């Protein structure tokens, strides 16, 4: 089915969004109507910002966070529905727009969908939204029956007056409920009474993804729409010098060549294929700028110097680590490194924009509708109230589509050159690879002392390298400190804390920023910090002649949640019991994004060095498990992402630009390499942690430690493809 929407509907959607406070709005492209070319359903008044109940008892739950595959749409709907006591079979969802959020004083809170925050940071207010709506619906029924509200109960979208057994449905009283004043005192259910939260519910968004009906940003079609392809100076920081427009203007379908900002050029044509091929034929001269000679090899030297530099900022400190190590019976030291990674979402960056002097609208897959809205307004040169962003489903996010909206700015800049005409900008895979917001590059020197009994006396960790915040939010850096650098290494607390109790400790960071733009890449700094820490802990266990599990347990004695997931993974994997011949195990435990995770990997390495990851047992404690089957899906996906990076992933700079430009040079894991994954969910309750990211950080260390067990080789620089595992 075509995704084309009628002009009437397109304009209606625009108008509805233009007017403020349109209650019961129906956004264009809500999947049940607009995306299928049907007129939007007549407006039904909302019960509150989170809940609309239609006369036919359909419940529309509004979701502010973005669905990008991680299941947050379903999880958040479960949370609202749990308190609403509605019929789950009649639940649908829709996105409120950032423009509406702005106009309504941010009634839906934060739209940002990153840092595995979707559920953990909005769980309380979305549950309250559901509870409030339920109380209003029940009140409306009681008012209609003229009975005390205390005599009424609600379940499955049906309200019952218990003394008389009279019943009515949510759909029948929703209009009356919408006129009531919302209650202020709201009590949420005790988790032990949950009926929907914690259950292995099917996702709400699966069917259309199996039939081709699901509309992603790239699939959008608007009346009169043109298509654009873009090239930005491949050298970071370079600019556009000149372009020979005339060379392509006569090509079929080509409408315009647009200079975008000072560093990019786009071709607008009737189809994207024509735009892309014209762009490929377009003579462009770049000014490569100050980074023309930048290279990863040269920058590695800068990072190396940072390992011993004196300008480091402290992240975590206990006692005098250097003195403790100096006085130790044994000293162990190692240097690790981690390369740039590209998010490489399956759907490349894209946005459709329509600009007039009065109004700018953008349709785009984004992890943060509000940030996309701000970027659009800025690029449009219009006040935010005259701009709107319609979020479309994301073909992957992984952090690429949240912090910077470079593609949105470009799309608006192009649309601005063609007032009134919607233009869809799609990045080619090559453009997407050359202009990512890359996982930061770092090196780390670890030093530790052991006493005669093999106990750790002091532990030092110097991180040298790139700060994400310096690149995307420099205002968040205080006193030269980027706190995100220390993920997984923080002092005891609820976020990304180091579990190990070292008698003396120093973790510090010497900031060294290359020309490469950094970004939040799924798992963020927990990824490499966990490799550095957990592989080195394995080195220490080995140096102390102790079992890696026993060695960790001792150091985790005061970190019961870290310990519990470690034990859960080790026990389920059968740590200490015999493996199949040639199979070896490796462990890892960490904490981040509010959750505790551990893994035990089983690998074999053939005589000629071929690695096979057979099985990974992963344990995760996110506090509450909202949807266990989706947690399992996230854990499995995390291993694919983490192992892709560990085995093959690196983006390297040469002559100022990225060398990897498609999946032959940036190789993701494929099905033949996928291990069996067993997920143990240890939901210990009392806190809310994320699940989309933390597990990625245990993938590589568990496998690297197992490789050491198998071969005696310590791999300290990733990816593995650069090393031979061949038996000497």
């Amino acid at each position: 089915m075509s995704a084309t929407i009628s002009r009437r509907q397109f304009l209606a959607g625009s108008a509805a969004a233009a007017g403020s406070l349109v209650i019961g709005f129906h956004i264009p492209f809500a999947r049940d109507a607009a995306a299928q070319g049907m007129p939007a359903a007549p407006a039904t008044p909302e019960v509150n910002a989170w809940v609309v109940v239609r006369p036919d008892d359909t419940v529309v739950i509004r979701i502010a966070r973005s669905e990008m595959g991680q299941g947050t749409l379903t999880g958040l709907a479960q949370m609202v529905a749990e308190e609403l006591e509605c019929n789950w079979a009649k639940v649908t969802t829709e996105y409120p727009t950032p423009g509406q959020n702005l106009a309504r004083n941010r009634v839906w809170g934060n739209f940002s969908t990153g840092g595995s925050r979707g559920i953990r940071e909005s769980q309380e207010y979305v549950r309250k939204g559901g509870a409030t709506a339920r109380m209003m619906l029940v009140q409306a029924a009681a008012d209609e029956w003229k009975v005390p509200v205390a005599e009424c109960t609600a379940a499955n979208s049906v309200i019952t007056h218990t003394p008389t057994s009279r019943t009515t449905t949510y759909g029948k009283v929703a209009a009356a409920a919408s006129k009531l004043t919302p209650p202020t005192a709201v009590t949420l259910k005790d988790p032990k009474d949950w009926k929907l939260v914690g259950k292995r519910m099917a996702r709400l968004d699966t069917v259309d993804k199996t039939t081709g009906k699901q509309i992603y940003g790239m699939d959008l079609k608007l009346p009169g729409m043109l298509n654009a392809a873009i090239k930005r100076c491949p050298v970071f920081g370079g600019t556009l010098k000149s372009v020979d427009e005339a060379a392509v203007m006569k090509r079929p379908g080509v409408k315009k060549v647009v200079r975008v900002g000072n560093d990019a050029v786009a071709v607008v044509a009737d189809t994207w294929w024509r735009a892309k091929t014209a762009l490929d034929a377009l003579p462009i001269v770049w000014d490569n700028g100050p980074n023309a000679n930048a290279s990863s090899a040269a920058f590695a030297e800068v990072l190396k110097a940072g390992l011993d530099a004196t300008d480091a900022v402290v992240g975590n400190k206990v006692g005098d680590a250097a003195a403790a190590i100096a006085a130790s019976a044994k000293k162990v030291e190692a240097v690790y490194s981690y390369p740039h990674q590209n998010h490489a979402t399956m759907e490349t960056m894209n946005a459709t924009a329509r600009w007039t002097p009065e109004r700018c609208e953008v349709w785009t897959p984004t992890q943060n509708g509000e940030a996309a809205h701000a970027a659009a307004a800025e690029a449009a040169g219009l006040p935010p109230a005259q701009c709107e962003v319609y979020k479309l489903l994301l073909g992957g996010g992984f952090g690429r589509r949240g912090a910077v909206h470079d593609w949105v700015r470009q799309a608006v800049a192009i649309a601005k050159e063609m007032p009134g005409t919607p233009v869809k900008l799609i990045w080619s895979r090559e453009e997407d690879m050359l202009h990512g917001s890359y996982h930061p590059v770092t090196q780390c020197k670890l030093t530790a002392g052991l006493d005669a009994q093999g106990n750790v006396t002091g532990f030092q960790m110097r991180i040298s390298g790139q700060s994400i915040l310096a690149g995307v939010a420099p205002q968040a850096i205080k006193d030269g400190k980027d706190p995100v650098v220390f993920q997984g290494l923080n002092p005891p607390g609820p976020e990304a804390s180091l579990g190990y109790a070292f008698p003396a400790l120093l973790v510090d960071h010497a900031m060294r920023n290359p020309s490469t733009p950094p970004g939040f890449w799924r798992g963020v700094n927990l990824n490499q910090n966990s490799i550095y820490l957990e592989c080195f802990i394995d080195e220490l266990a080995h140096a102390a002649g102790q079992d890696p599990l026993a060695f960790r347990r001792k150091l985790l004695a005061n970190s019961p949640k870290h310990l519990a997931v470690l034990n859960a993974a080790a026990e389920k994997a059968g740590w200490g019991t015999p493996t199949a011949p040639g199979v070896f195990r490796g462990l890892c435990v960490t904490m981040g994004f509010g959750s505790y995770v551990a893994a035990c990997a089983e690998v074999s390495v053939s005589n000629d060095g071929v690695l096979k990851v057979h099985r990974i047992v992963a344990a995760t404690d996110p506090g509450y498990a909202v949807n266990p089957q989706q947690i399992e899906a996230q854990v499995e996906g995390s291993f694919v992402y983490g192992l892709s990076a560990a085995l093959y992933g690196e983006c390297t700079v040469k002559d100022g630009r990225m060398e990897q430009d498609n999946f032959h040079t940036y190789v993701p894991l494929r099905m033949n390499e996928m291990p069996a994954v067993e997920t143990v969910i240890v939901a210990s309750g009392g806190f809310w942690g994320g699940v989309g990211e933390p597990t990625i950080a245990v993938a590589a260390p568990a496998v690297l430690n197992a490789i050491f067990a198998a071969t005696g080789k310590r791999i300290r620089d990733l990816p593995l493809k650069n090393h031979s595992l061949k038996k000497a």
Partner: protein
Amino acid sequence: MAKLNVNGKVREYKADPGTPLLWVLREQLGLTGTKYGCGVALCGACTVHINGVPTRSCVVPAASVKASAKVVTIEGLSPNGSHPVQKAWDKLDVPQCGFCQSGMIMAAAALLKAKPNPTDADINEAMTNICRCGTYNRVRAAIKVVAGGGDTKSAGLSIQHADGSLT
């Protein structure tokens, strides 16, 4: 006007020489279920069937596909998502973001037609599509469910559906 037989219908289209089948499907024929992921036959997101053979449409010039050849896209795999592969995918909640899944499903449908009872090695060989979300294990499980006649419980996922049924 050039012609293609897509999903059982003869469709006319106009495109420049060399335009890949993928972009004719997406831009001329409005069949956006077939996705662009890499453009160079590496990812499989653009997989369609040509005379039953799974084919990466991003590197096949549309003009090279004869009007007599039968092209099937995800939209034409079944009238309403009722193909056993689609049903298994739905019941096992295989898709995450879903962007790669049209290609996955088309590759799996072709595999199961050629080998109704594929071994793991067969699956590894046929399913080389890239999924960045990491759905591989559920893809494998769903293929095995279809091979086993559609018994979704055999996957051991115990997913509760809105209609009360259990996978």
